[in-house]
């Protein structure tokens, strides 16, 4: 048991690499073998993450310390360690990553037809980068995984992107954008070392970074923040996102929206909040303001879209705004230590932000899968050519309804709790910004119902409006065909999660709440 505990995180992180190496050794022609292997292999990390979640809940709750810590010297001369560990914040995100990876592989096994081997190889590799970021407690390790996640996604977008959406441009843009952020983050990390003498996040947090040199502290803060804000992406660094999401293959978009965006938010909570509480408190309002702008702006822009996938991409900008708002509120609350209610509002905001990370993961993941469902059949995403599908493809309609209403924050579905907690926190700390942010809720409802539901499903189905239908497997079809079994298998777990967590978020929330209380108490709240 202890052996497993000490190795489980490393297993989760590196098993996908092993998997991709094995895939690399397989002959290119054995596509079915490759697909099956990749899917089954990806189940191992999934099971491990589930085990971690259960074990953590049973044995490590209320410990206020990183569980499953492993610390091996990597570059001892400069104190760079392979230091991994998990707490309430990372455990659910690990599960999310594993789940979406498996589903993505399973879905892609049916729809990816060219260069299969490379796809599955890269997809496994990608998950390593994401797992790594969520568990690494050493800045350099964090950076390494951060960049490793970048490369496979660059390939996924570039190779399997839909030629109409200029995937090569999108891929380069995505890569350069993130690199531009992260390279300065690297400089800031070095700065952290120079000031604290360690790359270890926990130690650095204890010693405090650039406490003597506020100028450097501010600079490093912004370097980190911009890197994370680009990844999130926060307004105004979001413009890579619509292109990347639109161009990427379905599973790629799912991972991109479901997990990669979370890396940024996670980084803010894990690194920025613990290393630069002073600066964060000082500039927290900017973060919150950016979040609010993102919410409203993203919602409005989504309302203007007629391309389904691009719409959902922009909706991500809006939804990630909630996270930024929540985090910003937490930061501002650091200034209000002592004022009654500040502490619990901060906890609520923290919960809201982290809940949104997870919920947006499953909801937008599902939405992108659903885009894939219609795109694989109609080969267009132009909302103007659809209508009345509700009568023709009821299962698809129902699934989309669940995802859509979850996304607009309907109580009883997953999205609501994230929004509720975020606003509960934000109203307690930055009420005016929260008031503006509330506009976003209404606009969100508008674009989900008016753009997606109405133009896809309602109205009278007119077979003459769009004629290039095929089945999901590419055979010719006279009209839209309802979801195939594999699509149901991909989507329904997510829908079920939405419903369960919507009615009873506690199983998820207890982790985040644990993390919130711990991290905030470490900030001497």
């Amino acid at each position, binding site marked *: 048991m202890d052996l497993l505990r000490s190795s489980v995180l490393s297993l989760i992180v590196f098993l996908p690499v092993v998997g991709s190496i094995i895939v690399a050794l397989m002959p290119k022609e054995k596509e079915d073998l490759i697909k099956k292997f990749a899917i089954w292999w990806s189940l191992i990390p999934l099971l491990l993450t589930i085990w971690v979640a259960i074990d953590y809940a049973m044995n490590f709750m209320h410990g206020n310390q990183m569980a499953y810590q492993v610390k091996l010297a990597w570059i001892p001369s400069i104190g760079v360690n392979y230091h991994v560990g998990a707490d309430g914040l990372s455990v659910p995100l690990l599960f999310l990553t594993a789940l979406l990876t498996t589903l993505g592989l399973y879905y892609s096994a049916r729809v990816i037809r060219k260069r299969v081997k490379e796809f599955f190889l890269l997809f496994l590799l990608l998950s390593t980068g994401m797992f790594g970021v969520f568990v690494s407690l050493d800045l350099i390790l964090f950076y*390494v995984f951060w960049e490793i996640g970048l490369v496979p996604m660059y390939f996924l977008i570039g190779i399997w992107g839909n030629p109409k959406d200029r995937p*090569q441009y999108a891929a380069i843009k995505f890569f350069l954008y993130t690199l531009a952020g992260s*390279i300065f983050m690297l400089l800031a990390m070095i700065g952290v070392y120079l000031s604290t003498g360690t790359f270890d996040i926990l130690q650095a947090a204890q010693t405090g970074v650039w406490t003597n040199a506020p100028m450097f502290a501010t600079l490093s803060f912004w370097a980190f923040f911009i890197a994370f804000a680009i990844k999130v992406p926060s307004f105004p660094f979001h413009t890579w996102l619509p292109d990347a999401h639109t161009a990427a293959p379905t599973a790629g978009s799912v991972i991109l929206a479901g997990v990669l965006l979370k890396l940024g938010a996670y980084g803010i909570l894990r690194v920025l909040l613990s290393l630069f509480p002073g600066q964060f408190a000082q500039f927290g309002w900017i973060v919150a303001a950016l979040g609010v702008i993102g919410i409203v702006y993203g919602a409005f822009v989504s309302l203007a879209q007629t391309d389904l996938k691009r719409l959902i991409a922009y909706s991500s900008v809006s939804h990630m705004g909630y996270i930024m708002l929540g985090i910003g509120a937490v930061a501002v609350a650091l200034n209000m230590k002592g004022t009654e209610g500040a502490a619990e509002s901060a906890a609520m905001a923290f919960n809201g932000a982290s809940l949104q990370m997870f919920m947006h993961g499953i909801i937008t993941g599902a939405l992108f899968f659903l885009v894939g469902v219609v795109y694989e059949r109609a080969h267009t995403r132009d909302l103007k050519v659809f209508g009345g599908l509700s009568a023709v493809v009821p299962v698809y309609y129902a699934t989309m309804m669940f995802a859509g209403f979850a996304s607009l924050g309907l109580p009883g579905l997953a999205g609501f709790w994230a929004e509720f907690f975020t606003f509960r926190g934000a109203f307690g700390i930055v009420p005016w910004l929260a008031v503006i942010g509330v506009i976003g809720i209404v606009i969100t409802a508008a674009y989900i119902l008016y753009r997606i539901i109405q133009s896809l499903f309602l109205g009278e189905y007119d077979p003459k409006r769009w004629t290039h239908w095929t089945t999901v497997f590419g055979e010719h079809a006279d009209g839209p065909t309802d979801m195939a079994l594999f699509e149901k298998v991909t989507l329904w777990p997510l829908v079920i999660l939405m419903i369960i967590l919507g009615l009873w978020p506690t199983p998820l929330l207890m982790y985040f709440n644990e993390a919130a209380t711990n991290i905030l108490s470490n900030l001497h709240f």
Partner: protein
Amino acid sequence: MNVLEILRLLAPEFILLITGFAVIGVDLARRRQDEGKTAATVAVMGLLLAALASVWLYLGHPGEIVLFTMAIDVYGLFFKTAAFIGVALVIIASVNFMAGRSKYLGEFYALLVFAALAISVVVSASNLILIYIGIEFLSITSYILAGFLRGDKRSEEAAIKYFLYGASAGAILLFGLSILYGVTGTTDLATIGDLLLRSRSAHWLGLVALMMALAGIGYKASLVPFHQWAPDTYDGAPTPVSAFLSTASKAAGFAVLGRVILTAFPQLQPDWTQILGAIAVLTMFLGNLTALKQKSVKRMLAYSSIGQAGYILLGLVAVNQSGNFGGMNGLMIYLFGYIFTNVGAFLLLLAIEQKSGGSTDISQFKGLATRSPALALIMAMFMLSLAGVPPTVGFLGKFYVFAAVMNQQMLVLGALAAVNTIIAAFYYLNVIRHMYFSESEVEGGVMASRGLMTVLVVNAVMVLAIGIFAQFFMTWVNNSVSMIIANGF
């Protein structure tokens, strides 16, 4: 110091000397039979032997000055080892390529061996005279190598340009050295350092000498504004030679620059920090921005290697006493990794040229991933390493260099370097883009000879290994630095 001792300390040099002549001899014997394979083997053997010898010396942590002119210290030995390995790789890879392109294969390999010898002399030269001789030795062998493909206009042009530029730069260097001698009355670097330290009056004359020396040494390291020969020569010279020039010979340039500046001009640090800083920024920007435009991958690599020189120089700019981020160790690990990456990248062009008959146009790379995945993967790794993506060695080097810069709190310099990393990433990714995203225009896979393939694999493995098992190499580098930092600086 008796003869045996000298022999021991100069073992690598002697080995190379013997190897060089041995190669010619062997070649004379069996040129007709096997198109220089034996010669190449002998050369490689000799080089590896020399490398072993220098490692063996290294383990003894020597610190002697041999014959008043050669400082046999870990600093020099590090560069020797690196350079020998680099040259050896070049030779292995070029066997198949050179065969049929030239009749004088023996001379070719011999010249490479002698070039290695020149490098090993120059990196441990601690005396103005030997520095000059060593640099000229290296230059002259390089001229011949660059122009080795007789009857090939490009090769000849590369050679003549290199020659004219090198000769003039050498003359300027020499003028500088003469002034230095005039100011101090000695030709020994360490003594010069002490004298300059004592007499403040010699300050500005010392600077004059430094500036002129900079021109003469900087051109070897292809630093802007002394870089202009480089693109044409790298482009025109036979690809193995370009690989050699852009790595081993460049490393030698940096080694000399480091030794001269740190032993002879430590007290001028405020001055040369600014100047070298400016030069580094110029080098990075010019190299990277011009590389953006290139259509020929070979020429793109030529410019990129100029840009890389900029990063490497940062290590020297930010040199300081700190044990971890002293700057010089950044410079050295960067160079060490860079040798493998860039040699690999250039040599991979051999395969492309074989296929395309000389052209290294970017279009030749289109769809390479589907035609010959292995080569594409290796090339992608080299590109990512050059772009500085972890966990490759390129990242490690950049990390240490940047760390030194930050350590000296040269924030602007750091920021500019960061910006350059982003620009550079664009054209490195561009190669990957063509290899993986585009449909191929030419049919059929790209064949790589066994020798070439082994070299490429070795390089690729090293690119990853150094990055991942960084500690092993870093301890080595740090020790090598400790010596030069200790004396004089």
